[in-house]
């Protein structure tokens, strides 16, 4: 899986690349508009992460150039501008997702995972991990043919964890993923613990043990 990261902030780019490279992604970096357009014209990518504010040009023009080249690459806009207009404009020009900064890397990981699944495996809606079969369309989870009934939030959590497999994810990140903007109004993230506990119990009952590892009560990891 090849990803192009177009981002002028070096520290952030470095973190993103480090996080993604450990997840079987091959990640390339362009720090400015010129470089980005050059790479897009020459290489094919599975996913492009696009910062809208570049030192030598508007990120949206990169998107336009990409669409003119008729490339079917999935694009996720990562922007410091969290305005509805930019979001609508970006999606209108052809971006697939919009993630406002500052985001959590696991959130980005989950979005990339979902996007690549959508664009590359359009006909295949089944994810398999640790002999667990997840149907993205019907939202059914099966273990050895037997269905595991999950709540909407548990299903959401499961996908998020699998999308960031073998990475430790802080419970803050999970809390924000589950409750969006409301999460940062609370400091108490015990509800994440409750959901994880229920999910673990349900998986365990179906014979899937130890897929979710708890790290010192502060983070969780899907071990594959």
């Amino acid at each position, binding site marked *: 899986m090849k990803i192009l990261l177009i981002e002028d902030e070096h520290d952030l780019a470095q973190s993103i690349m480090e996080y993604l490279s450990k997840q079987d992604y091959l990640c390339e970096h362009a720090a400015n508009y010129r470089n980005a357009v050059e790479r897009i014209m020459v290489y094919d990518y599975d996913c492009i992460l696009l910062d809208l504010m570049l030192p030598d040009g508007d990120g949206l023009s990169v998107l336009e150039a990409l669409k003119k080249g008729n490339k079917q690459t999935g694009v996720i806009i990562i922007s*410091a501008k*969290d305005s509805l207009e930019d979001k609508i404009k970006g999606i209108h020009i052809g971006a697939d997702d919009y993630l406002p*900064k500052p985001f959590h890397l696991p959130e980005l990981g989950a979005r990339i995972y979902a996007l690549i699944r959508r664009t590359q495996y359009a006909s295949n809606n089944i994810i398999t991990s640790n002999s667990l079969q997840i149907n993205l369309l019907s939202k059914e989870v099966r273990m050895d043919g037997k269905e595991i009934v999950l709540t909407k939030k548990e299903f959401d959590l499961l996908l998020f964890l699998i999308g960031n497999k073998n990475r430790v994810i802080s419970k803050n990140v999970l809390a924000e993923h589950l409750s969006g903007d409301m*999460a940062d109004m609370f400091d108490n993230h015990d509800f994440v613990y*409750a959901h994880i506990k229920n999910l673990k119990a349900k998986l365990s009952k179906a014979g899937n043990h130890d897929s979710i590892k708890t790290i010192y009560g502060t983070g969780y990891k899907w071990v594959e």
Partner: protein
Amino acid sequence: MKRKKLLNKTLRYYLFSGGLMALVAIPLYYLGYNIYYIQETDEFLLEQSNNIYLKSLETLTENKIHVWNKYNHEAEILPDNGQKEENVFVTRKFYDSHEDEEVECRVLYSKIKIEDGNYLLMNRLSMLEAKKIIRSGTALHLAFFFLLLLGFTFPSRLVYKVYKKLWKPFYQTLSDVERFNIRSSEIPVFHPTDIQEFEQLNRAVENLISNSLQAYKIQKEFTENASHEMQTPLAVFRSKLDILLQQKDLTGEQSQIIQSLYEVVSRLVHMNKNLLLLAKIDNMQFPDTQSLNVAEIVNESLSFLSEQAEANHIEIQTDINENSIVQANKTLLESLVNNLLVNAVKHNILCGKIHISLWKSKLSISNTGNVAGLNENMLFRRFSRMNEKVKGSGLGLAIARQICLLYGWEIGYEYENGRHRFEVNF
């Protein structure tokens, strides 16, 4: 202070100063005309004596003097009384047989010689007519004075018309400035005028407005830019924490530290978001409004909050009494409802209660809490935290109030029977 129209005030000053001037002018006119008339009379008398009488006296002999005196009514040859100067003017009374009374006359005494004898030639002119003219002139002047007073006290339509025409550019500028709204960022176009002061005023106001617009724009950009600039370092901070958490051999203690850093950065992000939101509300950057069902927004918010409430065994009771539809921006109404509901959960007690009531134009949220009544004045201020135990951005209620201000809604707080109640009147 009672304000007067410029015209009335102007006229009052004119009345005062003009009246005073006219009043002083009456005696001055009288005295001045008197002096002027006497001068003219003297010149006339001298001219008459030198050119007419003296010529006829050249052939006169001493014994014919009484005959000359008899034929000349206004002149008389008198014996010398030792007058030193050549000509002497005096004002004195003479008996006038026409008027049958003493009449004031201007008299010229000139030294003359007839044959070898010294005599005085007396030449006089009655001042009766002149006095009459001066008197009626003064009376006329007085009449004008009263007319003037009348005109100033009860200004005519004409005065108003002239005044209006004269001050038209000023009133135009005034209404232009009144209609000016800094948020529309449009400099009004002033009508050109040929009066220097008004033109100067227009230029000055134009200058002032464009400077204010500039400052307003800079301030607007600054708050937004500052918040945006902060997003990037916060993003770096977050990403580094996510990377740090992946390190193998992290100890429990290290994990705890990372955990608290996560919490701190979340608070920073939240605070920054709220500051940006406040700046955007201040700058009216939420122009698009739509009809929104308040009950729907409340239910949406509750679906996120119920877990938090359940965790603390808080009972939430909702009474949707009437359907409530308001015109507002969706993001802002959500923010208002979320802030109030989150507060009701956050500042509640274990096994506490929340009561939400909705009427056609009123939303009321009351909750139990562990502190007594709060100071309403402090409550809605930015960064005025009421409860030290509960962490927050300190901006929630400030945002709620700002949103209410924007839409002309009323937000109030009450403490009653151990419950905190917030009420929004749409």
